[in-house]
């Protein structure tokens, strides 16, 4: 009796070789890797809510006091929440899963894709290394010293030590530099959204700026770990590298590939030339919740989430339209605090009296739906500072529950490149070059040139400009960390809002604290601990000292 057939092929998958023999399949394979950037859209990483890292800083206040929507507030005031068993800012296993996929892709590309010509192969490799560099940049930004894996490793190679922070940044820079070399400068219409030369140079500039800031500022003051920190002597070299990479982007801008855009409209413009690297969305399949998360309550009665709102600290930072500073101590300005501010203010913040979707916002205590409420035990779901976050909101989206949101997320903008350039050039004492870049941005934003002359003045101006220009884009927390200022700016302090109370025909504003406990940032937090799951199973790794 012969046996009947049981050898069937799988019906639901491709076999290995078939994938590498067809460039269209390789494209489908590498495209999937871009889904990693969704983790970071609108600054949602690592706390899981859009803009939440800004809510760890002085720019934004999350309105909920309870875990979930308000987890960020708990983290901001309780440093003990971060530990190896629960690092809170945790990208470790997701990041390494993506790194493995990328290394697997690179290995397959080099061993199985025989039919592919050398240039296509290099372009695919560059694309994979661009994404890998980005993933590693996050891991290094969080932990300083991480495990570097540059090839596909199997179960027998599970034990790997951490590398030094300096080597980690060099590794990230090498990936971006390779990507910059082999990626195309532009993409055709069918491939918008894939990495380009400019994106890689931008990331390279950001990477070197981080490495240089840490070399300059860390000075091994915050822990005794052998592998964290970067020798101070390297700072000049790395600032120079950052400046060089930024110059490469500026060359591409000179060719018309990138340009500063109109601040008020570019965040809802899907094709803004400011974007060096942009994540796109498409209804109804791939959308996000930025609008539902941040619109004033009456935009979606009962359902608007009002995750986070701008702080008084941010609002005060916006200059007057003539470039002078705003001050509540000036009675004229205080009487009419929202008049004649610089244009970015009106594109970033919704304040009492703003025109919004055909109505005039009332954020004073007289409005029980949209007016200010005290931050406390519950989820407020309305402003606790007197402001709402306008940046990124799509004013044309009137049914956000059904439509959700599809505005693009610019992971890196040309404005950031100019700010990196200004900072790097300031540090290598090219004040003139630094001022050129800073002023190019300020001019486009409708502001006069910076009056700064010295390097410290330039740094103050750049910090201010980064706060205002890049608000809610998830930069501030990491800036304060790389400058090693977080334990000063974010510690033992309560941030504030402006409570408006109707008085006669006008409104009086009172500064109120919006934190019900002091903020806390301990020096140990400059290096997030390696997750316990890793140190238990990887016999070659050690925990960062101090954890």
């Amino acid at each position: 009796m012969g046996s009947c057939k049981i050898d069937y092929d799988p019906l639901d998958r491709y076999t290995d070789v078939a994938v590498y023999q067809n460039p269209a399949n390789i494209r489908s394979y590498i495209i999937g890797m871009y889904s990693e950037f969704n983790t970071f859209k609108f600054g949602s990483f690592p706390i899981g809510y859009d803009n939440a890292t800004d809510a760890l800083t002085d720019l934004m206040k999350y309105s909920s006091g309870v875990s979930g929507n308000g987890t960020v507030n708990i983290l901001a005031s309780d440093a003990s929440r971060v530990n190896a068993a629960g690092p809170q800012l945790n990208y470790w296993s997701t990041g390494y899963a993506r790194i493995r996929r990328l290394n697997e892709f690179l290995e397959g590309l080099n061993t199985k894709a025989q039919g592919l010509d050398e240039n296509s192969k290099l372009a695919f490799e560059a694309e994979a290394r661009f994404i890998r560099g980005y993933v590693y940049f996050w891991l290094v930004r969080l932990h300083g010293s991480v495990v570097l894996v540059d090839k596909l490793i199997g179960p027998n190679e599970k034990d790997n030590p951490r590398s030094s922070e300096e080597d980690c940044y060099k590794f990230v820079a090498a990936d971006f530099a390779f990507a910059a070399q082999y990626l195309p400068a532009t993409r055709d219409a069918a491939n918008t959204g894939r990495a380009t030369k400019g994106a890689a140079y931008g990331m390279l500039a950001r990477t070197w700026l981080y490495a240089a800031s840490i070399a300059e500022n860390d000075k091994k003051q915050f822990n005794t770990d052998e592998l964290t920190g970067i020798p101070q002597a390297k700072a000049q070299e790395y600032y120079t590298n950052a400046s060089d990479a930024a110059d490469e982007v500026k060359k591409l801008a000179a060719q018309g590939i990138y340009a500063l855009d109109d601040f008020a409209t570019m965040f809802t413009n899907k094709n803004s030339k400011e974007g060096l690297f942009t994540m796109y969305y498409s209804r109804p399949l791939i959308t996000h919740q930025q609008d539902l998360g941040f619109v004033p309550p009456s935009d979606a009665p009962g359902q608007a989430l009002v995750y986070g709102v701008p702080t008084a600290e941010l609002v005060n930072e916006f200059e007057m339209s003539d470039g002078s500073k705003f001050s509540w101590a000036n009675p004229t300005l205080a009487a009419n605090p929202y008049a004649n501010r610089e244009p970015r203010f009106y594109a970033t913040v919704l304040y009492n009296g703003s025109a919004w979707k055909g109505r005039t916002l009332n954020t004073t205590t007289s409005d029980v739906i949209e007016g200010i409420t005290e931050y406390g035990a519950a989820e407020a779901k309305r402003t606790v500072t007197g402001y709402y976050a306008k940046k990124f909101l799509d004013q044309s989206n009137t049914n956000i529950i059904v439509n959700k949101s599809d505005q693009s997320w610019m992971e890196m903008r040309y404005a950031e490149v100019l700010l990196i350039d200004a900072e790097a050039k300031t540090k290598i004492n090219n004040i003139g070059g630094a001022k050129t870049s800073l002023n190019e941005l300020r001019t486009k934003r409708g502001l006069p040139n910076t009056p700064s002359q010295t390097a410290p003045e330039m740094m103050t101006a750049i910090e201010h400009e980064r706060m205002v220009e890049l608000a809610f884009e998830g930069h501030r927390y990491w800036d304060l960390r790389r400058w090693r200022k977080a334990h000063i700016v974010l510690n033992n302090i309560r941030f504030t809002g402006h409570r408006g109370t109707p008085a006669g025909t006008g409104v009086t504003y009172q500064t109120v604290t919006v934190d019900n406990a002091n903020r806390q940032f301990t020096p140990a937090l400059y290096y997030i601990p390696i997750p316990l799951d890793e140190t238990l199973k990887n016999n070659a790794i050690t925990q960062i000292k101090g954890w």
Partner: protein
Amino acid sequence: MSLMLCMFCFNIAAFSQSKVVTGTVTDKSNLPIPGVSVKVKGSSRATVTDGTGKYSISLDANHTALVFSYLGFAPKEVTVTGVTANATLDESNSQLDEVIVVGYGTQKKSNVIGSVAQINSADLKQAPTMNITNMLAGRLPGITTVQSSGRPGADDATIRVRGTSTYAGGQGPTVIVDGVERSFAQLDPNEIESISVLKDAVSSAVYGLQAANGIILVTTKRGKSMSPKVSYDGAIMQNSNTRFPKFLDGPDYMDWFSRAETLDNDYRINVGMDPSPLTYNQQQIDALRNGTNTNPLFGNTDWVGALLDKKSLSQNHGITVRGGTEKVRYFSSVGYLGQDGVVENTDFKRFNLRTNVDAELNSILSVAFDLNARMQNTTTPGISPDNTAYMNPFYQAVRTLPNMPMYAENGLPTAYQSNAGYVNPLAAVSQSGYQKGETNVFQSNLTFNVKVPWVEGLSAKVLTSFDKSATENKGWLTPYQLMGRVRGQTSGNFTLISNPPGITVNTLRQSYSQNNRLTFQPSLNYNKTIGDHTFTVLALYEWSRRKSNVFSTGARNFALSDLQEIDFGSSATNDFISPTGNSDIQARNGYVGRINYAFKEKYLFEVAMRADASLNFPPEGRWGYFPGVGLGWVASEEAFFGNLKNTVSFLKLKATYGVLGKDAVQTDFPYLSAFQLNTNPVVVIGGTPLAALYTASPPNRDLTWERHKMTNVGFQAELWNGKFGVDFDCFYTVVTDVLTGRGSLYPPSLGGNVPSTFNDGITDNRGFDLQLRHKNNIGKFNYSITGNFNWARNKIILINENQNLPAWQKRTGRPIGEKLGFVVDGFYQNWEEARNGTSPSAGFLAPGYFRYKDLNGDGRITRDADMTFVGRSNLPEIMYGLNLQASYGGFDFSALFQGAALSSLALGGLYEGSSGTSGIEDNSPFTKTFYGYGNSPYYLVEQSWTPDNPNAKYPRLTSGGVSLSPHNANQNSGFIIKNDYLRLKTIQLGYTLPKTVFNSKIDRVRFYVSGFNLFTWDKLKYLDPEMPNVNNGFYPQQKMISGGVNLTF
């Protein structure tokens, strides 16, 4: 046929010298017994009684005695004097002659060497008609069941045979219905003849790869050579919940919530935060309590009660027809079951249809043709009342607030914004749309049997079977309007909420899935008796292939919502629901051989072997060989037994050993390197949403079978001719090459580059099954008592686990499924203790938090060092049942007490799928007051820690409004409870009308009342002991009371 022809010739030849004897065979209550075998003693002549118990047989002058025999009755010999010979048969107490269904055949119970337990239809039907898996609890030795949901149509009990012996892959037994792998949960009990369970290796060796977790063999009824007998069974049942705790009412909620907030402020002050004002004031509470409340936001609604405290009705009807001639026999049945759930819009309907026909075509060839069709209709609200569904109505009920009116002033249902969204359990079940599922099952067997004419005892059989099951699901979700308020809102009014909970537009989803199985099973069977030697030899080949596929699509945004068909959905691209679909294929084949040998019915020997191939393994490891061998010795037949035989009428000792296999790999094709495509687009490139290819887990080419080596030793005894019976089996199983994953062994930095499945690990499992029977009659009073008891304890001997774990955290040496957690050693009682306490979680500790034991003594509490095993598996180690039956005249009574012991349940800790949550450690509404900002049961607030209740059972009373340290959410022993229980599982009282009452056209009329799950004795009191681990509300187990009638024509 040839034999019958000869008999016929003989009859003609002998006619002149013989007389024809007729008579009726009845039982003690004077009811006729059809199908009784009537044999002429000393001759080969025989007949059977017809449907009215009548027979007719010719008797020559040399023979004067007739022997009447029928299964379940003691054989009777009658000496014939005239032409009429009536006989009254007494029921037998002995089970020795009972026919036991074993793999690919039957055996007399006295000859069975393996461990096989069987239940017949009469015993099965002592429970109300429902899902058959729930009718087995406590009735069979060796079976363990847990029923975790009471939802009609989804109330299957989890069944385990002898516990479980492996920690990976499926652990449930394989069910074979009429020779083919099929499910049995939704068969109609009226169509079942017997269910037998094969527990040891030799009896299940013939099922090879499917046998490792035990085999359940279900045999359906077949025709008999008798005049047609028609039966009707009908019953009506009332269902209600066994248990669900009482939740706080409106004023009590506000009162307890204020107390909780006061304690939270104590926390705030002690950790350097500003206190918050209380949400409710005493006037509001008093006003609500004494009925003077005028605040439109407040009311008093028992949401949990309104959702669950209803009673519902179910009914079932079944008609069977059974009969036949010598040549053609038939059994047909039609059944209907309609179950209404206690939750509104939840019901289940089932129609069963079966016809089994046997025909002897000629002296060599016979054919059996079985057809079975079944339709199952399940209806639930749009928001599914499944324990595992996120935002299910139970979850909503325990979360919504009782201090709201049921309806707002404008008549719309009220809602409250819990952390998950707006909840109103009643609107969720009445207004969210529906989910309808229709499953149509078609099953057929065609079996040819050939008696090979030139070799006596040799027969060949070919079974072919085609089964198809198709399910159509149609889900209509429709937005509904609620009047919502946010947490803590005490002024103003409700706001109109148009899209709870996340249903934005009306949406229709339809899916169609089907699976079909082809089975081809030719076999040869040879029976031979030479003197004292009896042989039975079986050779069989089996091939089966199962194909399945599924596709689904849908539409959104219906302009007209009355017609819920895809055509009526919006045709805008944005409203499309992208279709999905995939296919799957599985195939197996194997060779089976078995030899049974008996010498003088005293020494029994069985050897069986199966060779199997599974597509789950690479060609190198594809074939597995599964032998089994068994010995039996009927000691009571030995001469030395002597007079002892008057007491011990039967004693058989038996032992078996064998190897069984399992092919449950963790992913399909684990030995192939492959790429899969995302079902949904993941990224927008070039303006287009695109799906991407991604790699499946890396291959493992070394995979092969998981092997279960089972030893079974036991005895079967009967005392005083069956008045007492004992079946005892003890077993020991060793499992090697456990098919398991290793993912948790590797550091995350490896990025998960690990094959899905390895042959790792060794486990063992030991235990015993015991059945004790007593059966007797005192005059017209008959009674029987059957006790079943089984115990099974497994142990992990080797598991690939992290060697850096401390000894008390290693699973090696411990039973499967034990619960990990911190050991609770009382509470921190004051702030000083709390400040000096340590926690695995961040945040401040407070008085009323659990104090965890520092197991490694390093002064800190850490997850890697201080967790240990604090709870047993969910699956009880011990399961037992006590079945009482009695009858007196027309009355009959039965009761089944069923219990389980040595298992535990976690009320909080690691989520295992409840409410769509898995792998997360957290509290639940049953461990943390006002969990998820919802309501709390009375028992919980009353037993929570407060400064006035320092010896509490549950941690610190909290309103949830302050971010306490998640310290208590870590798995811990404080939330683990013993869920041992004893239930009055079924009880039934019946009365059969005396024959004199009605027309003789009707044979039998019986009325009965019965109950199911009427009483439970356990330690939980508030919750059902079979409820799912760590949950957010569940569909409660059901208690039923029913009344019914049986009619036989």
